[in-house]
Protein backbone atom coordinates (compact mmCIF):
# COMPACT_ATOMS: atom_id res chain seq x y z
CA UNK A 1 0.00 0.00 0.00
CA UNK A 2 2.65 2.48 0.98
CA UNK A 3 4.28 2.37 -2.42
CA UNK A 4 1.11 3.65 -4.01
CA UNK A 5 1.09 6.81 -1.98
CA UNK A 6 4.75 7.52 -2.17
CA UNK A 7 4.99 7.15 -5.87
CA UNK A 8 1.85 9.17 -6.18
CA UNK A 9 3.37 11.92 -4.11
CA UNK A 10 6.61 11.59 -5.99
CA UNK A 11 4.92 12.40 -9.26
CA UNK A 12 4.42 16.02 -8.30
CA UNK A 13 7.23 18.22 -7.08
CA UNK A 14 7.17 18.46 -3.31
CA UNK A 15 9.01 21.76 -3.45
CA UNK A 16 6.31 24.25 -4.37
CA UNK A 17 7.74 27.73 -4.87
CA UNK A 18 6.32 30.32 -2.54
CA UNK A 19 4.18 33.04 -4.10
CA UNK A 20 6.34 36.11 -4.90
CA UNK A 21 6.70 38.39 -1.93
CA UNK A 22 5.22 41.84 -2.49
CA UNK A 23 7.96 44.47 -2.64
CA UNK A 24 7.39 46.17 0.67
CA UNK A 25 9.30 49.18 1.87
CA UNK A 26 11.34 49.28 5.00
CA UNK A 27 8.78 51.42 6.75
CA UNK A 28 5.78 49.14 6.46
CA UNK A 29 6.64 45.48 6.97
CA UNK A 30 5.76 43.41 3.89
CA UNK A 31 2.55 41.45 3.97
CA UNK A 32 3.57 37.99 5.00
CA UNK A 33 3.13 35.41 2.28
CA UNK A 34 1.22 32.32 3.21
CA UNK A 35 3.78 29.71 4.20
CA UNK A 36 3.70 26.26 2.70
CA UNK A 37 2.67 24.67 5.97
CA UNK A 38 -0.30 26.98 6.33
CA UNK A 39 -1.27 26.44 2.71
CA UNK A 40 -1.33 22.68 3.21
CA UNK A 41 -3.30 23.08 6.42
CA UNK A 42 -5.81 25.33 4.65
CA UNK A 43 -6.25 22.82 1.82
CA UNK A 44 -6.55 20.03 4.35
CA UNK A 45 -9.36 21.71 6.22
CA UNK A 46 -11.29 22.08 2.98
CA UNK A 47 -11.66 18.32 2.50
CA UNK A 48 -14.44 16.42 4.18
CA UNK A 49 -12.35 13.23 4.26
CA UNK A 50 -9.90 14.86 6.63
CA UNK A 51 -12.61 15.92 9.06
CA UNK A 52 -14.34 12.54 8.98
CA UNK A 53 -11.03 10.80 9.66
CA UNK A 54 -9.80 13.27 12.27
CA UNK A 55 -13.06 13.32 14.25
CA UNK A 56 -13.28 9.51 14.16
CA UNK A 57 -9.70 9.15 15.39
CA UNK A 58 -10.24 11.76 18.10
CA UNK A 59 -13.34 9.89 19.28
CA UNK A 60 -11.50 6.54 19.21
CA UNK A 61 -8.52 7.94 21.14
CA UNK A 62 -10.80 9.46 23.77
CA UNK A 63 -12.79 6.24 23.94
CA UNK A 64 -9.67 4.11 24.39
CA UNK A 65 -8.43 6.40 27.17
CA UNK A 66 -11.66 7.16 29.02
CA UNK A 67 -13.80 4.14 28.12
CA UNK A 68 -12.41 1.78 30.78
CA UNK A 69 -13.08 4.40 33.50
CA UNK A 70 -16.75 4.63 32.60
CA UNK A 71 -17.43 0.90 32.50
CA UNK A 72 -18.00 -1.37 35.51
CA UNK A 73 -16.15 -4.47 34.26
CA UNK A 74 -12.43 -4.95 33.71
CA UNK A 75 -10.64 -7.04 31.11
CA UNK A 76 -9.61 -9.99 33.29
CA UNK A 77 -12.48 -10.38 35.77
CA UNK A 78 -15.05 -13.11 35.12
CA UNK A 79 -18.79 -13.03 35.33
CA UNK A 80 -19.75 -16.66 35.98
CA UNK A 81 -23.47 -15.94 35.61
CA UNK A 82 -23.08 -14.63 32.06
CA UNK A 83 -20.66 -16.88 30.22
CA UNK A 84 -20.60 -16.95 26.42
CA UNK A 85 -23.47 -14.52 26.05
CA UNK A 86 -24.04 -12.19 23.12
CA UNK A 87 -24.23 -8.41 23.55
CA UNK A 88 -26.54 -7.46 26.43
CA UNK A 89 -27.22 -4.28 28.40
CA UNK A 90 -24.90 -5.64 31.09
CA UNK A 91 -22.04 -6.64 28.76
CA UNK A 92 -22.12 -4.36 25.75
CA UNK A 93 -20.00 -6.53 23.45
CA UNK A 94 -20.96 -9.85 25.08
CA UNK A 95 -18.73 -12.22 27.03
CA UNK A 96 -16.36 -15.01 26.05
CA UNK A 97 -16.50 -18.66 27.06
CA UNK A 98 -15.13 -18.06 30.56
CA UNK A 99 -17.25 -14.98 31.25
CA UNK A 100 -14.73 -12.21 30.55
CA UNK A 101 -16.21 -8.98 29.29
CA UNK A 102 -15.36 -8.37 25.64
CA UNK A 103 -15.99 -4.61 25.72
CA UNK A 104 -13.38 -4.14 28.43
CA UNK A 105 -10.96 -6.45 26.62
CA UNK A 106 -11.45 -4.63 23.33
CA UNK A 107 -10.62 -1.31 24.97
CA UNK A 108 -7.42 -2.67 26.54
CA UNK A 109 -6.43 -4.27 23.23
CA UNK A 110 -7.20 -1.08 21.35
CA UNK A 111 -4.94 0.89 23.71
CA UNK A 112 -2.06 -1.49 23.14
CA UNK A 113 -2.49 -1.59 19.35
CA UNK A 114 -2.77 2.21 19.16
CA UNK A 115 0.34 2.74 21.27
CA UNK A 116 2.34 0.32 19.12
CA UNK A 117 1.07 1.92 15.91
CA UNK A 118 1.64 5.48 17.08
CA UNK A 119 5.23 4.69 18.09
CA UNK A 120 6.27 2.31 15.30
CA UNK A 121 4.81 4.33 12.40
CA UNK A 122 6.70 7.60 13.08
CA UNK A 123 9.79 5.66 14.18
CA UNK A 124 9.92 3.92 10.79
CA UNK A 125 9.58 7.30 9.08
CA UNK A 126 12.43 8.66 11.18
CA UNK A 127 14.70 5.81 10.08
CA UNK A 128 13.64 6.37 6.47
CA UNK A 129 14.39 10.09 6.71
CA UNK A 130 17.86 9.53 8.19
CA UNK A 131 18.91 6.70 5.88
CA UNK A 132 17.35 8.22 2.76
CA UNK A 133 18.78 11.70 3.23
CA UNK A 134 22.26 10.46 4.20
CA UNK A 135 22.38 8.11 1.19
CA UNK A 136 21.11 10.74 -1.21
CA UNK A 137 23.29 13.54 0.15
CA UNK A 138 26.58 11.70 0.51
CA UNK A 139 26.34 9.66 -2.69
CA UNK A 140 29.27 7.47 -3.67
CA UNK A 141 30.10 4.37 -1.68
CA UNK A 142 27.80 5.18 1.26
CA UNK A 143 24.89 5.58 -1.14
CA UNK A 144 25.59 2.30 -2.91
CA UNK A 145 25.92 0.37 0.33
CA UNK A 146 22.72 1.81 1.79
CA UNK A 147 20.74 1.26 -1.41
CA UNK A 148 22.01 -2.27 -1.52
CA UNK A 149 20.89 -2.86 2.08
CA UNK A 150 17.47 -1.42 1.25
CA UNK A 151 17.11 -3.77 -1.72
CA UNK A 152 18.25 -6.68 0.40
CA UNK A 153 15.58 -5.99 3.01
CA UNK A 154 12.99 -5.54 0.28
CA UNK A 155 13.68 -8.95 -1.26
CA UNK A 156 12.10 -10.88 1.58
CA UNK A 157 8.62 -9.86 2.75
CA UNK A 158 8.95 -8.13 6.11
CA UNK A 159 6.22 -10.33 7.62
CA UNK A 160 8.41 -13.39 7.04
CA UNK A 161 11.47 -11.63 8.44
CA UNK A 162 9.51 -10.62 11.54
CA UNK A 163 8.26 -14.19 11.97
CA UNK A 164 11.83 -15.52 11.74
CA UNK A 165 12.96 -12.95 14.28
CA UNK A 166 10.01 -13.57 16.60
CA UNK A 167 11.84 -16.03 18.91
CA UNK A 168 14.22 -13.17 19.72
CA UNK A 169 11.51 -10.98 21.18
CA UNK A 170 9.55 -13.84 22.70
CA UNK A 171 10.61 -13.12 26.27
CA UNK A 172 10.89 -9.36 25.82
CA UNK A 173 8.20 -6.79 26.29
CA UNK A 174 6.01 -5.31 23.53
CA UNK A 175 8.41 -2.35 23.25
CA UNK A 176 10.87 -4.57 21.37
CA UNK A 177 8.11 -5.75 19.06
CA UNK A 178 7.39 -2.10 18.30
CA UNK A 179 11.04 -1.42 17.49
CA UNK A 180 11.24 -4.51 15.26
CA UNK A 181 8.11 -3.49 13.35
CA UNK A 182 9.55 -0.01 12.80
CA UNK A 183 12.88 -1.57 11.79
CA UNK A 184 11.25 -3.36 8.84
CA UNK A 185 8.94 -0.67 7.55
CA UNK A 186 11.21 2.14 6.37
CA UNK A 187 12.76 0.82 3.15
CA UNK A 188 10.45 2.14 0.44
CA UNK A 189 10.14 5.58 2.03
CA UNK A 190 13.93 5.74 2.35
CA UNK A 191 14.18 5.25 -1.42
CA UNK A 192 11.76 8.13 -2.02
CA UNK A 193 13.62 10.43 0.40
CA UNK A 194 16.91 9.46 -1.24
CA UNK A 195 15.76 10.38 -4.74
CA UNK A 196 14.35 13.70 -3.49
CA UNK A 197 17.57 14.46 -1.63
CA UNK A 198 19.64 13.77 -4.72
CA UNK A 199 17.77 16.45 -6.63
CA UNK A 200 17.82 18.89 -3.70
CA UNK A 201 21.56 18.48 -3.23
CA UNK A 202 22.35 20.41 -6.39
CA UNK A 203 19.98 23.28 -5.65
CA UNK A 204 21.58 26.65 -5.00
CA UNK A 205 20.55 27.06 -1.39
CA UNK A 206 22.07 23.71 -0.45
CA UNK A 207 25.22 24.44 -2.44
CA UNK A 208 25.54 27.83 -0.75
CA UNK A 209 25.26 26.25 2.67
CA UNK A 210 27.82 23.63 1.74
CA UNK A 211 30.35 26.15 0.43
CA UNK A 212 29.88 28.21 3.58
CA UNK A 213 31.11 25.21 5.51
CA UNK A 214 27.90 24.21 7.20
CA UNK A 215 28.35 20.62 8.42
CA UNK A 216 26.32 17.89 6.76
CA UNK A 217 24.23 17.16 9.84
CA UNK A 218 22.99 20.75 9.87
CA UNK A 219 22.38 20.89 6.12
CA UNK A 220 20.26 17.78 6.35
CA UNK A 221 18.33 19.09 9.33
CA UNK A 222 17.85 22.65 8.04
CA UNK A 223 17.51 22.29 4.28
CA UNK A 224 16.88 18.73 3.17
CA UNK A 225 14.48 17.31 5.75
CA UNK A 226 12.17 20.39 5.82
CA UNK A 227 11.83 20.09 2.05
CA UNK A 228 10.66 16.49 2.24
CA UNK A 229 8.70 17.05 5.44
CA UNK A 230 5.32 16.79 3.75
CA UNK A 231 6.21 13.37 2.34
CA UNK A 232 7.41 12.30 5.77
CA UNK A 233 4.19 13.42 7.46
CA UNK A 234 2.14 11.37 5.00
CA UNK A 235 4.41 8.38 5.50
CA UNK A 236 4.21 8.64 9.28
CA UNK A 237 0.40 8.74 9.10
CA UNK A 238 0.14 5.75 6.82
CA UNK A 239 2.95 4.08 8.76
CA UNK A 240 0.61 3.97 11.76
CA UNK A 241 -1.80 1.89 9.67
CA UNK A 242 0.97 -0.41 8.45
CA UNK A 243 2.38 -0.86 11.97
CA UNK A 244 -1.00 -1.72 13.49
CA UNK A 245 -1.63 -4.17 10.63
CA UNK A 246 1.78 -5.77 11.23
CA UNK A 247 1.20 -5.98 14.98
CA UNK A 248 -2.27 -7.52 14.72
CA UNK A 249 -1.15 -9.99 12.05
CA UNK A 250 1.89 -11.10 14.06
CA UNK A 251 -0.14 -11.37 17.26
CA UNK A 252 -2.91 -13.23 15.47
CA UNK A 253 -0.51 -15.96 14.34
CA UNK A 254 1.14 -16.09 17.77
CA UNK A 255 4.35 -14.22 16.98
CA UNK A 256 3.65 -10.79 18.41
CA UNK A 257 1.93 -9.73 21.61
CA UNK A 258 1.61 -12.67 24.00
CA UNK A 259 -0.36 -13.30 27.19
CA UNK A 260 -0.73 -11.65 29.66
CA UNK A 261 -0.63 -8.66 27.30
CA UNK A 262 -3.74 -8.13 25.21
CA UNK A 263 -3.91 -6.48 21.79
CA UNK A 264 -6.58 -6.45 19.11
CA UNK A 265 -4.56 -9.18 17.35
CA UNK A 266 -4.65 -11.59 20.29
CA UNK A 267 -8.36 -10.87 20.82
CA UNK A 268 -9.05 -11.67 17.18
CA UNK A 269 -7.00 -14.86 17.47
CA UNK A 270 -9.13 -15.95 20.42
CA UNK A 271 -12.33 -14.94 18.67
CA UNK A 272 -11.59 -16.77 15.40
CA UNK A 273 -12.31 -20.29 16.62
CA UNK A 274 -15.76 -19.11 17.67
CA UNK A 275 -16.25 -16.73 14.74
CA UNK A 276 -19.06 -18.79 13.26
CA UNK A 277 -20.90 -19.81 16.44
CA UNK A 278 -20.32 -16.68 18.55
CA UNK A 279 -19.63 -14.03 15.92
CA UNK A 280 -19.55 -11.13 18.41
CA UNK A 281 -16.21 -12.38 19.76
CA UNK A 282 -14.68 -11.72 16.35
CA UNK A 283 -16.85 -9.04 14.79
CA UNK A 284 -16.55 -6.40 17.52
CA UNK A 285 -12.73 -6.30 17.82
CA UNK A 286 -12.44 -6.59 14.02
CA UNK A 287 -14.89 -3.73 13.54
CA UNK A 288 -13.05 -1.48 15.99
CA UNK A 289 -9.76 -2.26 14.25
CA UNK A 290 -11.11 -1.61 10.76
CA UNK A 291 -12.79 1.68 11.73
CA UNK A 292 -9.59 2.89 13.39
CA UNK A 293 -7.35 2.04 10.43
CA UNK A 294 -9.87 3.36 7.90
CA UNK A 295 -10.00 6.70 9.70
CA UNK A 296 -6.20 7.00 9.75
CA UNK A 297 -6.03 6.12 6.02
CA UNK A 298 -8.58 8.85 5.27
CA UNK A 299 -6.38 11.41 7.03
CA UNK A 300 -3.34 10.14 5.12
CA UNK A 301 -5.18 10.35 1.82
CA UNK A 302 -6.44 13.87 2.52
CA UNK A 303 -2.89 14.90 3.50
CA UNK A 304 -1.53 13.57 0.23
CA UNK A 305 -4.05 15.55 -1.78
CA UNK A 306 -3.33 18.67 0.26
CA UNK A 307 0.41 18.35 -0.27
CA UNK A 308 0.16 17.66 -3.98
CA UNK A 309 -3.12 18.97 -5.39
CA UNK A 310 -2.01 18.97 -9.04
CA UNK A 311 -1.25 15.26 -9.24
CA UNK A 312 -4.05 13.21 -10.63
CA UNK A 313 -6.22 15.89 -12.16
CA UNK A 314 -8.01 14.58 -15.21
CA UNK A 315 -7.74 17.16 -17.98
CA UNK A 316 -9.26 14.92 -20.60
Amino acid at each position, binding site marked *: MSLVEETNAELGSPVVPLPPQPLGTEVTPPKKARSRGRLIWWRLTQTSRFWVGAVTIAVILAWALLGPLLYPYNATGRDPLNMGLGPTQLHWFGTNGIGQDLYAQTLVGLQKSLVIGLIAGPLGTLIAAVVGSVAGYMGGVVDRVLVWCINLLLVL*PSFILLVILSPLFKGLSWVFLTVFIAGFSWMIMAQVVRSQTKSLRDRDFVKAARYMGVPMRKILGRHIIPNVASLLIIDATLGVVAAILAETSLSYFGFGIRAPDVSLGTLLAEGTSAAVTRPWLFVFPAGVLIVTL*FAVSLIGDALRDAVDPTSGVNRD
Partner: protein
Amino acid sequence: MAFYIFRRFVNYFFLSLIATCLAYVVSSLALDPAAKYYGRNPQPTQQTIDNILDGLGVNPNVPVLQRLWDWLVNLVVHGSLGTGVNGVSIGDQIISRAGVSLRLLLIGSLIGALVGVTLGVWGAVRQYKLSDQVVTYGSYLIFATPTFVIGVLLMIAATALNGAAGAQLINFTGEYSAGLSGSWWDLTLDRGVHLLLPTIALVLIGAAGYSRYQRSVMLDVLSADFIRTARAKGRSRNSALVRHGVRVALIPMSTFFAYSFGTLVSGSIMLEIVFSFHGMGEFALNAISQSDINAVAGTTLFVAILILFSSTLSEVLYAALDPRVRN
Protein backbone atom coordinates in the same frame (compact mmCIF):
# COMPACT_ATOMS: atom_id res chain seq x y z
CA MET B 1 17.32 -6.48 -24.32
CA ALA B 2 18.43 -9.99 -23.43
CA PHE B 3 21.57 -8.59 -21.86
CA TYR B 4 19.57 -6.04 -19.88
CA ILE B 5 17.26 -8.71 -18.50
CA PHE B 6 20.19 -11.01 -17.79
CA ARG B 7 21.93 -8.28 -15.83
CA ARG B 8 18.81 -7.64 -13.76
CA PHE B 9 18.42 -11.38 -13.20
CA VAL B 10 21.98 -11.68 -11.91
CA ASN B 11 21.37 -8.71 -9.62
CA TYR B 12 18.19 -10.26 -8.18
CA PHE B 13 19.90 -13.65 -7.99
CA PHE B 14 22.61 -12.33 -5.70
CA LEU B 15 20.12 -10.38 -3.64
CA SER B 16 18.00 -13.50 -3.12
CA LEU B 17 21.06 -15.58 -2.31
CA ILE B 18 22.31 -13.14 0.29
CA ALA B 19 18.82 -12.69 1.73
CA THR B 20 18.59 -16.45 2.17
CA CYS B 21 22.01 -16.61 3.85
CA LEU B 22 20.97 -13.74 6.10
CA ALA B 23 17.78 -15.58 7.02
CA TYR B 24 19.83 -18.69 7.79
CA VAL B 25 22.14 -16.79 10.11
CA VAL B 26 19.29 -14.93 11.80
CA SER B 27 17.24 -18.08 12.34
CA SER B 28 20.31 -19.88 13.70
CA LEU B 29 20.75 -17.11 16.22
CA ALA B 30 17.05 -16.82 17.06
CA LEU B 31 16.11 -20.50 17.33
CA ASP B 32 17.42 -23.04 19.81
CA PRO B 33 17.04 -26.54 18.33
CA ALA B 34 18.63 -28.20 21.35
CA ALA B 35 16.02 -26.94 23.83
CA LYS B 36 13.40 -29.56 23.06
CA TYR B 37 15.81 -32.43 23.71
CA TYR B 38 16.73 -31.06 27.13
CA GLY B 39 13.04 -31.01 28.00
CA ARG B 40 12.60 -34.74 27.33
CA ASN B 41 12.18 -37.23 30.14
CA PRO B 42 14.44 -39.17 30.49
CA GLN B 43 16.84 -36.54 29.25
CA PRO B 44 19.14 -37.85 26.49
CA THR B 45 22.86 -37.65 27.17
CA GLN B 46 24.76 -34.65 25.87
CA GLN B 47 26.53 -36.99 23.43
CA THR B 48 23.21 -38.14 21.92
CA ILE B 49 21.91 -34.60 21.58
CA ASP B 50 25.14 -33.49 19.91
CA ASN B 51 24.96 -36.43 17.52
CA ILE B 52 21.37 -35.58 16.53
CA LEU B 53 22.17 -31.88 16.08
CA ASP B 54 25.36 -32.64 14.14
CA GLY B 55 23.39 -34.98 11.91
CA LEU B 56 20.98 -32.17 11.11
CA GLY B 57 23.84 -29.68 10.79
CA VAL B 58 22.33 -27.35 13.38
CA ASN B 59 24.63 -27.85 16.39
CA PRO B 60 24.88 -24.41 18.02
CA ASN B 61 28.47 -25.20 19.14
CA VAL B 62 29.64 -25.15 15.52
CA PRO B 63 30.23 -21.54 14.35
CA VAL B 64 27.23 -20.28 12.42
CA LEU B 65 29.22 -19.30 9.33
CA GLN B 66 30.69 -22.82 9.19
CA ARG B 67 27.15 -24.28 9.27
CA LEU B 68 25.97 -21.82 6.63
CA TRP B 69 28.86 -22.86 4.39
CA ASP B 70 28.04 -26.57 4.91
CA TRP B 71 24.40 -25.85 4.13
CA LEU B 72 25.32 -24.01 0.90
CA VAL B 73 27.78 -26.71 -0.19
CA ASN B 74 25.16 -29.36 0.48
CA LEU B 75 22.65 -27.36 -1.55
CA VAL B 76 24.96 -26.83 -4.52
CA VAL B 77 26.66 -30.24 -4.59
CA HIS B 78 23.79 -32.54 -3.63
CA GLY B 79 20.84 -30.26 -4.37
CA SER B 80 19.66 -31.03 -0.85
CA LEU B 81 18.17 -28.64 1.66
CA GLY B 82 19.05 -30.82 4.63
CA THR B 83 16.82 -32.77 6.96
CA GLY B 84 14.10 -31.42 9.22
CA VAL B 85 13.76 -32.17 12.92
CA ASN B 86 11.10 -34.77 12.01
CA GLY B 87 13.73 -36.68 10.02
CA VAL B 88 12.18 -36.00 6.61
CA SER B 89 14.15 -34.25 3.88
CA ILE B 90 13.24 -30.55 3.66
CA GLY B 91 13.30 -30.68 -0.14
CA ASP B 92 10.67 -33.45 -0.23
CA GLN B 93 8.48 -31.63 2.26
CA ILE B 94 8.66 -28.41 0.26
CA ILE B 95 7.90 -30.18 -3.03
CA SER B 96 4.81 -31.80 -1.55
CA ARG B 97 3.58 -28.48 -0.19
CA ALA B 98 4.72 -25.99 -2.84
CA GLY B 99 1.94 -26.92 -5.27
CA VAL B 100 -0.75 -25.92 -2.79
CA SER B 101 0.84 -22.53 -2.20
CA LEU B 102 1.73 -21.81 -5.81
CA ARG B 103 -1.78 -22.61 -7.04
CA LEU B 104 -3.35 -20.12 -4.66
CA LEU B 105 -0.65 -17.51 -5.21
CA LEU B 106 -0.62 -17.67 -9.02
CA ILE B 107 -4.38 -17.73 -9.54
CA GLY B 108 -4.92 -15.07 -6.90
CA SER B 109 -2.24 -12.65 -8.05
CA LEU B 110 -3.10 -12.98 -11.76
CA ILE B 111 -6.82 -12.36 -11.26
CA GLY B 112 -6.00 -9.66 -8.73
CA ALA B 113 -3.72 -7.86 -11.19
CA LEU B 114 -6.30 -8.08 -13.99
CA VAL B 115 -9.14 -6.84 -11.80
CA GLY B 116 -6.96 -4.13 -10.27
CA VAL B 117 -5.71 -2.78 -13.59
CA THR B 118 -9.22 -2.78 -15.04
CA LEU B 119 -10.71 -1.02 -12.03
CA GLY B 120 -7.84 1.49 -11.99
CA VAL B 121 -8.27 2.45 -15.63
CA TRP B 122 -12.01 2.62 -15.22
CA GLY B 123 -11.69 4.76 -12.10
CA ALA B 124 -9.30 7.16 -13.84
CA VAL B 125 -11.56 7.56 -16.85
CA ARG B 126 -14.59 8.13 -14.65
CA GLN B 127 -12.76 10.22 -12.02
CA TYR B 128 -14.92 11.42 -9.11
CA LYS B 129 -18.02 9.73 -10.51
CA LEU B 130 -19.92 7.45 -8.15
CA SER B 131 -18.29 4.25 -9.44
CA ASP B 132 -14.82 5.76 -8.90
CA GLN B 133 -15.71 6.82 -5.37
CA VAL B 134 -17.05 3.36 -4.53
CA VAL B 135 -13.87 1.67 -5.81
CA THR B 136 -11.65 4.20 -4.02
CA TYR B 137 -13.32 3.86 -0.64
CA GLY B 138 -13.67 0.12 -1.10
CA SER B 139 -9.93 -0.21 -1.62
CA TYR B 140 -9.22 1.95 1.44
CA LEU B 141 -11.50 -0.33 3.42
CA ILE B 142 -9.52 -3.37 2.24
CA PHE B 143 -6.22 -1.62 3.09
CA ALA B 144 -7.58 -1.05 6.58
CA THR B 145 -8.50 -4.71 7.07
CA PRO B 146 -5.87 -7.28 8.08
CA THR B 147 -5.61 -10.21 5.67
CA PHE B 148 -6.74 -12.77 8.21
CA VAL B 149 -9.83 -10.69 9.05
CA ILE B 150 -10.82 -10.72 5.37
CA GLY B 151 -10.41 -14.50 5.40
CA VAL B 152 -12.46 -15.05 8.54
CA LEU B 153 -15.19 -12.62 7.41
CA LEU B 154 -15.46 -14.58 4.14
CA MET B 155 -15.78 -17.77 6.19
CA ILE B 156 -18.61 -16.25 8.24
CA ALA B 157 -20.34 -15.14 5.04
CA ALA B 158 -19.94 -18.58 3.46
CA THR B 159 -21.38 -20.23 6.57
CA ALA B 160 -24.36 -17.89 6.43
CA LEU B 161 -24.79 -18.68 2.74
CA ASN B 162 -24.61 -22.42 3.39
CA GLY B 163 -27.14 -22.01 6.18
CA ALA B 164 -29.49 -20.00 3.98
CA ALA B 165 -29.21 -22.49 1.12
CA GLY B 166 -29.63 -25.42 3.50
CA ALA B 167 -26.78 -27.24 1.78
CA GLN B 168 -22.98 -27.26 1.90
CA LEU B 169 -22.49 -25.04 -1.14
CA ILE B 170 -19.05 -23.68 -0.24
CA ASN B 171 -16.54 -25.83 1.58
CA PHE B 172 -13.69 -23.81 2.98
CA THR B 173 -11.80 -25.83 5.58
CA GLY B 174 -8.66 -27.44 4.22
CA GLU B 175 -7.57 -27.86 0.68
CA TYR B 176 -9.93 -30.69 -0.32
CA SER B 177 -12.71 -32.74 1.28
CA ALA B 178 -11.20 -35.61 3.23
CA GLY B 179 -12.16 -39.06 2.00
CA LEU B 180 -13.80 -37.83 -1.15
CA SER B 181 -13.61 -40.28 -4.03
CA GLY B 182 -14.93 -39.95 -7.53
CA SER B 183 -13.86 -39.11 -11.02
CA TRP B 184 -10.98 -36.76 -11.78
CA TRP B 185 -13.52 -34.06 -12.53
CA ASP B 186 -15.20 -34.40 -9.12
CA LEU B 187 -11.87 -34.10 -7.33
CA THR B 188 -10.84 -31.05 -9.35
CA LEU B 189 -14.18 -29.39 -8.73
CA ASP B 190 -13.85 -30.09 -5.03
CA ARG B 191 -10.42 -28.47 -4.91
CA GLY B 192 -11.70 -25.53 -6.91
CA VAL B 193 -14.52 -24.94 -4.42
CA HIS B 194 -12.06 -25.09 -1.53
CA LEU B 195 -9.81 -22.64 -3.33
CA LEU B 196 -12.65 -20.16 -3.87
CA LEU B 197 -12.62 -18.19 -0.61
CA PRO B 198 -8.84 -17.75 -0.20
CA THR B 199 -8.59 -16.77 -3.85
CA ILE B 200 -11.33 -14.16 -3.40
CA ALA B 201 -9.46 -12.78 -0.39
CA LEU B 202 -6.16 -12.63 -2.29
CA VAL B 203 -7.82 -11.01 -5.32
CA LEU B 204 -9.37 -8.36 -3.05
CA ILE B 205 -5.98 -7.52 -1.52
CA GLY B 206 -4.18 -7.45 -4.87
CA ALA B 207 -6.91 -5.54 -6.69
CA ALA B 208 -7.06 -2.88 -3.96
CA GLY B 209 -3.35 -2.10 -4.33
CA TYR B 210 -3.15 -2.35 -8.11
CA SER B 211 -6.29 -0.30 -8.74
CA ARG B 212 -5.05 2.65 -6.65
CA TYR B 213 -1.68 2.67 -8.38
CA GLN B 214 -3.07 2.10 -11.86
CA ARG B 215 -5.60 4.88 -11.31
CA SER B 216 -2.99 7.47 -10.38
CA VAL B 217 -0.67 6.49 -13.24
CA MET B 218 -3.56 6.49 -15.70
CA LEU B 219 -4.65 9.95 -14.54
CA ASP B 220 -1.19 11.30 -15.33
CA VAL B 221 -1.28 9.64 -18.75
CA LEU B 222 -4.74 10.99 -19.51
CA SER B 223 -3.53 14.56 -19.23
CA ALA B 224 -0.50 13.93 -21.45
CA ASP B 225 -0.18 15.59 -24.83
CA PHE B 226 0.06 12.42 -26.85
CA ILE B 227 -3.49 11.46 -25.91
CA ARG B 228 -4.72 14.81 -27.21
CA THR B 229 -2.66 14.27 -30.37
CA ALA B 230 -4.18 10.85 -30.86
CA ARG B 231 -7.65 12.30 -30.45
CA ALA B 232 -6.80 15.20 -32.78
CA LYS B 233 -5.71 12.91 -35.57
CA GLY B 234 -9.09 11.26 -35.39
CA ARG B 235 -8.84 8.29 -33.09
CA SER B 236 -11.97 7.59 -31.12
CA ARG B 237 -11.79 8.25 -27.39
CA ASN B 238 -11.82 4.58 -26.43
CA SER B 239 -9.19 3.69 -29.00
CA ALA B 240 -6.92 6.54 -27.86
CA LEU B 241 -7.36 5.48 -24.23
CA VAL B 242 -6.59 1.81 -24.81
CA ARG B 243 -3.96 1.91 -27.56
CA HIS B 244 -2.08 4.98 -26.31
CA GLY B 245 -3.18 5.39 -22.71
CA VAL B 246 -3.33 1.99 -21.06
CA ARG B 247 -0.20 0.76 -22.77
CA VAL B 248 1.88 3.63 -21.43
CA ALA B 249 0.22 3.48 -18.03
CA LEU B 250 1.17 -0.18 -17.72
CA ILE B 251 4.91 0.57 -17.83
CA PRO B 252 5.27 1.76 -14.22
CA MET B 253 2.81 -0.96 -13.21
CA SER B 254 5.33 -3.66 -14.17
CA THR B 255 7.77 -2.31 -11.58
CA PHE B 256 5.03 -2.00 -9.00
CA PHE B 257 4.09 -5.63 -9.67
CA ALA B 258 7.54 -6.78 -8.52
CA TYR B 259 7.40 -4.66 -5.37
CA SER B 260 3.91 -5.75 -4.39
CA PHE B 261 4.55 -9.43 -4.98
CA GLY B 262 6.12 -9.76 -1.54
CA THR B 263 2.92 -8.43 0.03
CA LEU B 264 0.92 -11.01 -1.89
CA VAL B 265 3.27 -13.80 -0.78
CA SER B 266 2.87 -12.94 2.87
CA GLY B 267 -0.88 -12.43 2.30
CA SER B 268 -1.26 -15.87 0.76
CA ILE B 269 0.82 -17.43 3.54
CA MET B 270 -1.57 -15.93 6.11
CA LEU B 271 -4.62 -17.04 4.12
CA GLU B 272 -3.29 -20.61 3.87
CA ILE B 273 -3.06 -20.76 7.64
CA VAL B 274 -6.51 -19.23 8.14
CA PHE B 275 -8.11 -21.71 5.73
CA SER B 276 -5.94 -24.59 7.11
CA PHE B 277 -4.25 -25.48 3.83
CA HIS B 278 -1.22 -27.73 4.21
CA GLY B 279 1.00 -25.33 2.27
CA MET B 280 4.19 -23.40 2.81
CA GLY B 281 2.55 -21.09 5.34
CA GLU B 282 1.84 -23.94 7.72
CA PHE B 283 5.33 -25.28 7.02
CA ALA B 284 6.94 -21.98 8.01
CA LEU B 285 4.81 -21.75 11.15
CA ASN B 286 5.72 -25.28 12.22
CA ALA B 287 9.37 -24.64 11.43
CA ILE B 288 9.46 -21.69 13.82
CA SER B 289 7.56 -23.42 16.61
CA GLN B 290 9.76 -26.55 16.33
CA SER B 291 12.98 -24.50 16.06
CA ASP B 292 13.76 -26.21 12.76
CA ILE B 293 16.55 -24.08 11.27
CA ASN B 294 16.83 -26.08 8.03
CA ALA B 295 13.10 -25.74 7.42
CA VAL B 296 13.21 -21.98 8.00
CA ALA B 297 16.12 -21.67 5.57
CA GLY B 298 14.28 -23.81 3.01
CA THR B 299 11.15 -21.68 3.32
CA THR B 300 13.18 -18.52 2.88
CA LEU B 301 14.85 -19.95 -0.19
CA PHE B 302 11.43 -20.85 -1.61
CA VAL B 303 10.14 -17.30 -1.06
CA ALA B 304 13.38 -15.79 -2.39
CA ILE B 305 13.10 -17.86 -5.59
CA LEU B 306 9.48 -16.75 -6.02
CA ILE B 307 10.53 -13.12 -5.63
CA LEU B 308 13.48 -13.69 -7.98
CA PHE B 309 11.17 -14.99 -10.71
CA SER B 310 8.51 -12.33 -10.23
CA SER B 311 11.12 -9.56 -10.30
CA THR B 312 12.68 -10.92 -13.48
CA LEU B 313 9.24 -11.35 -15.02
CA SER B 314 8.42 -7.73 -14.25
CA GLU B 315 11.68 -6.65 -15.90
CA VAL B 316 10.73 -8.64 -19.00
CA LEU B 317 7.30 -6.99 -18.98
CA TYR B 318 8.95 -3.61 -18.55
CA ALA B 319 11.25 -4.19 -21.49
CA ALA B 320 8.39 -5.48 -23.61
CA LEU B 321 6.24 -2.43 -22.88
CA ASP B 322 8.86 0.29 -22.96
CA PRO B 323 10.84 0.49 -26.22
CA ARG B 324 13.43 2.79 -24.62
CA VAL B 325 14.77 -0.03 -22.45
CA ARG B 326 15.24 -2.47 -25.29
CA ASN B 327 18.15 -0.73 -26.92
